[in-house]
């Protein structure tokens, strides 16, 4: 069992947010009375389209960490692996709005969807226009025919980045929403888990797995994957993950692609780089040019061991938005 550094498990999220805001007051501030809405310390320009996200805690830098310039305007944070309430989401929408409307951009999880829909109804009375884009990039969670049922995972980082850059450029709600949808459609992800994490309030690991086993395609909360079996080598794991991604979204010669090799938490960067070798070979074999590969911890499940890959197929617009400046405590692009 992984050990955790905490006080009362009930206060895990509140104390985490307290520390986050204390450490980075130049980026983040708490908004509202619930204490679980984080907004930009320096609000965006007036008239900028707002972008909000939300979801359970335990995935830093997702979701809260990506509040920042050229990224998100506000985020509603739930308990570990639990949706924030509709009221918190409404608060996040309110603080993100500067008159140009707000895009709700988040992962496809039942509870989050219900609450963001409800939040939209709550703010409708206040004349805030909302749009929605859901990330549903996890190819292991449903077949292509049912892609709208897929869970949202690390692909959301690309969508945050691209939509954030579009909003920063001054595009309107429709334009920003279109970019977010295009980014969401351009992403495919898959993960492989080696060991679980512990949800503080539950006090026990999210799943059990033998010492010599791994699970291909497991979700970030321990949702079942496509197979469980003996731990494979890095090259085998990376090879199968690339097979599955490329089967779902073929890459042709001349394509420009960004790729994220993401640690689910405990897996160190050393091992991500070992995996990256195969990713690079496979993409180059397919004739693709790799643009701004992201290797690191971008979307995690606390101390879960394992890694995920995300492919994001770029057109000129998405590539420019990916490379536009952004700034938050966890990621900076110049």
């Amino acid at each position, binding site marked *: 069992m992984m050990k955790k550094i905490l006080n009362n498990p009930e206060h895990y999220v509140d104390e985490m947010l307290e520390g986050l805001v204390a450490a980075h007051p130049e980026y983040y501030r708490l908004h509202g009375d619930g204490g679980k809405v984080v907004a930009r310390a320096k609000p965006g320009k007036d008239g900028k389209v707002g972008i909000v996200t939300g979801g359970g805690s335990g995935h830093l830098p997702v979701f809260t960490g990506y509040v920042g310039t050229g990224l998100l305007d506000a985020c509603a944070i739930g308990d570990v692996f639990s949706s924030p309430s*509709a*009221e918190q989401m409404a608060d996040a929408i309110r603080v993100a709005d500067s008159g140009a409307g707000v895009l709700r951009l988040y992962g496809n999880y039942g509870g989050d969807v*219900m609450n963001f829909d409800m939040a939209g109804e709550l703010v409708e009375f206040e004349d805030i226009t909302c749009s929605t884009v859901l990330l549903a990039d996890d190819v292991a969670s449903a077949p292509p025919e049912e892609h709208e049922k897929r869970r949202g995972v690390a692909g959301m980082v690309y969508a945050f980045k691209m939509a954030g850059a579009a909003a920063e450029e001054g595009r309107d709600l429709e334009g920003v929403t279109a970019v977010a949808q295009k980014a969401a459609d351009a992403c495919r992800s898959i993960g492989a888990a080696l060991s679980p994490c512990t949800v503080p309030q539950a006090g026990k690991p999210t799943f059990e797995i033998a010492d010599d086993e791994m699970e291909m395609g497991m979700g970030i909360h321990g949702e079942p994957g496509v197979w469980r079996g003996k731990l494979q080598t890095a090259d085998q794991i990376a090879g199968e993950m690339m097979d599955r991604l490329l089967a779902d979204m073929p890459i042709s010669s001349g394509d420009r692609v960004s790729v994220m090799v993401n640690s689910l938490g405990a897996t160190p960067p050393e091992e991500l780089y070992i995996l990256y070798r195969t990713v690079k070979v496979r993409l180059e074999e397919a004739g693709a040019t790799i643009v701004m590969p992201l290797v690191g911890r971008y979307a995690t499940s606390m101390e879960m061991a394992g890694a995920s890959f995300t492919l994001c197929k770029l057109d000129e617009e998405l590539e420019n938005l990916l490379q536009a400046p952004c700034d938050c405590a966890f990621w900076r692009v110049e």
Partner: protein
Amino acid sequence: MTITRDMLLAAIDRVAAAMERDFDMLNTADGALGDGDLGVTMSRGMRAISAMKDDLPDDIGMALFQCAQAFTKSSGSSYGTLMATGLMSAAKALRGAQSIDVASVPDLIAGARDKMQERGKADLGGKTVLDSLDYVSRATAEADTGDMVVAAAQAVDKALDDFRDRPATVGRARIFGEKSIGLDDPGMLAMRSVVKAATGQ
């Protein structure tokens, strides 16, 4: 026959008490098929409603609207949001009324069921709270106004019995697939407690 504001307040007290009583039972049931927070969600929501009970407006619609808000504020769990959605649907239908005509209850419940279905994007027959509400709205519609209370209580039991041996296909329970066969859906258990307490059974 009508349901008065006082009757509503008394029902709130009974449901709140039932949720305290069933706290562990609901957490355990949800722990087997989900994240184990359903008792927390329900007791938090009902405590918030109890706390503002004395200040609820006379307008039953407005009162139910505030009850709905108590749920949207106190929890982000699915059931809280579904409860709020159902309450809001009834609130809209009852705006301006000082009491509820018992004859309208089946429609109010069917209306709540439909709005909750929209909210949760799930089909009937998925072994969720929607099926409990569906059973209750039909059973009450078929019953005489005097028998509605008994019909509702029987309906929540029957829904549990009918669905127990079917697999869950909605929400977190879905990932348990076949393993959910034989286990009661936590949301249906919660609705049984709510309906029985509300109707004083």
